[in-house]
């Protein structure tokens, strides 16, 4: 193996691709898309806090309206003095969103309050009105039943599960399992997509050289194994470049997104002169828990190993095919394990420590997707991570050996796409 030749191939593969329009657009559009999604979400939040729905309460009991106004003084208005006809007119003129008449029956009997409105506001509005009334009417009933405060508190209590993580070192940490589950699934999906897309680059590159017939000229200067290695390294370098740009862009965006959203919301709140909104919390989706550095390092390791494991096979398929359209069937032996890993991931995401998850995350062809998902979500024992890495390295040596045998013969076989039978022959040669 000559490193000079490998480097020359690597450089060509890298530079021609990095300069291509497709690569530049993909590299730019992904962060732009991400920024757009955040922007839209911020916009929605800001917009939402501006809009108000006014619900007039005609309270015949005199007990329901005050607590409602206490809950949300901008929404609930005590219009008990007005006649129903006037309320109807106000709704018709869009002066108020709707009105509710509360009678004694709403409290003593099982009769639901009835909102008369123009139909605007949507589900979220209806659900919040519903929950406000549920709470207030329950309180009124409890009070009337003259139950002790203790029991009232029991009814008011809302039990949720709080969780804290205890590390092996004995420190307690905030638990972000739910957030991390999404991170784990996202990382798995990213590796899944990138194996296919960068692998696809390699397959198409090999086929291009074959259909252009340049490969024989190249082969008169470079050994097939050098050409293969150079290609894999070149596309690998491309992948690393793209991911570095994306990771930096995401890091930058998430850092500025929070403060930016806050300032936006403050200005809009002060414009409407509302103190409550000004004190609003940062919306939950912008409150990113920190991702550990070790997770990023593992992601890079599994990404690279997964890429290496599969990319040589993608090259072998390209060498056996005669045109782009002929790759479908040859692709199956690669597609099947990746797809299986992908489907298992949706199980692993929910129960990362089940036997299925543990065993399949150690199988080398599944590890790149499943192990990273598990590492993100749960505390994976090091022997499992270590053995999956070791097995992937060993399998990589195997796939590389196999692929180089196929590739060596395949690149010079013009005219027809090889069958699996042909490929077996090439391997045994």
């Amino acid at each position, binding site marked *: 193996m000559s490193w000079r030749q490998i480097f020359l191939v690597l450089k060509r593969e890298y530079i021609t691709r990095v300069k291509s329009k497709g690569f530049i657009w993909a590299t730019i559009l992904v962060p732009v898309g991400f920024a757009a999604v955040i922007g839209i979400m911020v916009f929605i939040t800001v917009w939402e806090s501006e809009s108000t729905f006014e619900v007039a309460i005609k309270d015949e009991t005199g007990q329901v309206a005050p607590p409602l106004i206490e809950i949300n003084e901008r929404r609930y208005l005590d219009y008990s003095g007005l006649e129903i006809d006037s309320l109807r007119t106000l709704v018709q003129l869009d002066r108020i969103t709707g009105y509710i008449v509360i009678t004694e029956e709403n409290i003593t009997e099982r009769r639901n309050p009835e909102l008369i409105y123009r139909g605007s506001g949507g589900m979220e509005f209806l659900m919040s009105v519903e929950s406000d009334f549920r709470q207030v009417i329950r309180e009124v009933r409890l009070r009337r039943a003259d139950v002790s405060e203790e029991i009232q508190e029991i009814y008011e209590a809302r039990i949720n599960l709080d969780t804290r993580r205890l590390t092996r070192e004995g420190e307690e940490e905030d638990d972000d399992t739910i957030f991390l589950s999404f991170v784990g699934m996202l990382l798995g999906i990213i590796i899944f997509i990138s194996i296919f897309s960068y692998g696809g680059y390699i397959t198409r590159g090999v086929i*291009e050289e074959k259909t*252009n*017939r340049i490969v*024989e*000229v190249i082969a*008169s*200067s470079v*050994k097939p194994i050098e050409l293969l290695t150079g290609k894999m390294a070149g596309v690998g370098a491309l992948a690393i470049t793209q991911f570095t740009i994306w990771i930096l862009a995401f890091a930058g965006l998430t850092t500025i997104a929070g403060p930016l959203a806050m300032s936006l919301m403050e200005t809009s709140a002060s414009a409407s002169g509302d103190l409550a909104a000004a004190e609003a919390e940062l919306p939950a989706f912008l409150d990113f828990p920190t991702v550990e550095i070790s997770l990023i390092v593992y992601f890079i390791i599994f990404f690279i190993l997964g890429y290496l494991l599969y990319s040589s096979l993608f090259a072998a398929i390209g060498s056996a095919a005669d045109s782009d359209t002929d790759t479908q069937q040859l692709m199956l032996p690669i597609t099947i394990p990746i797809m299986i890993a992908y489907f298992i991931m949706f199980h692993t995401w929910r129960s990362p420590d089940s036997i299925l998850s543990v065993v399949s995350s150690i199988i080398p062809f599944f590890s790149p997707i499943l192990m990273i998902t598990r590492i993100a979500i749960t505390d994976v024992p090091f022997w499992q991570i270590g053995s999956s890495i070791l097995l992937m390295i060993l399998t990589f040596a195997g796939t590389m050996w196999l692929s180089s045998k196929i590739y060596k013969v395949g690149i010079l076989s013009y005219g027809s796409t090889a069958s699996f039978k042909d490929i077996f*022959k090439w391997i045994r040669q």
Partner: protein
Amino acid sequence: MTTIDVNNLSKTFGKTVAVNNVSFEVERGRIFGLLGPNGAGKTTTIRMINFIMPPDEGEILINGVKAGPKTQRWIGYMPEERGLYKKMKVGEQLIYLAQLKGLTASDAREKIRYWLKRFGAYDWHSKTVGELSKGMSQKIQFIATIVHDPDIYIFDEPFSGLDPINSELLKEIIIELREKGKTILFSTHRMEQVEQMCDDICLFNNGKVVLTGNLRKVKKDFGKNTVLIEFEGDPTFLDQLENVRINNRSTNFAEIRILEGLDHQDILRKAMENTEVHKFQLVEPSLNEIFISTVGEDNIKQQELAV
């Protein structure tokens, strides 16, 4: 001095014996023609000389060194299936290919400039190959083959698919290279080019060498047993001749190879009885004739062996 020394070379693909115990020598400063029908094993032999595939048996020495990555740099190779990267710019592409042959980038740039100018192609430097016409990209292909200034040039079926202008250009290049003392090996099945250009030949059939040596000597050894005849009149007398093979027949011309026994004077007599003879000449056989008779005999022998 021997530049390419091929000894007892064999290569088998599955059950097909592509090259079977082949030996020949290519001398320095000469043009060597590798002839043979399609599927005779020429391309496989050329690929092994270029170290694109390893031989199963036998040995190839290039300037006394066993074929390998080192000897690859001494050879400029233009395969039968020609091609370039379509989306890459001409200049970048040539630099890449020259660098793979061991040139430094600056060295490569200088030589590429020279050749592009020489072929009147300097304006194409920043165009992609996809933008070029077929004839233009063929010129670029020549440059890619010769840019690193090797000692040995190997062309596999170089004239197939070339337009007449590029065909002439390539012939000029080949002759010029020989004048510079370079060694050229090319394969072809077009005999007139071999007759015009080659010093030595090697004839392949079914993976084996059936004839090799100096072209003049090969022709001489075949003897003056070919008759060129020009006549006017009824040509049907030609059909009555026995023990001959008629090549190149037209209404008033024939090239007749005398096989066995028959006296050329008999042919002349028969011709004079039936037509008016304008020209009657006894010559060495054409290479085409040598090719057909040698390959034909070899095939008959093989069939007999098979029976």
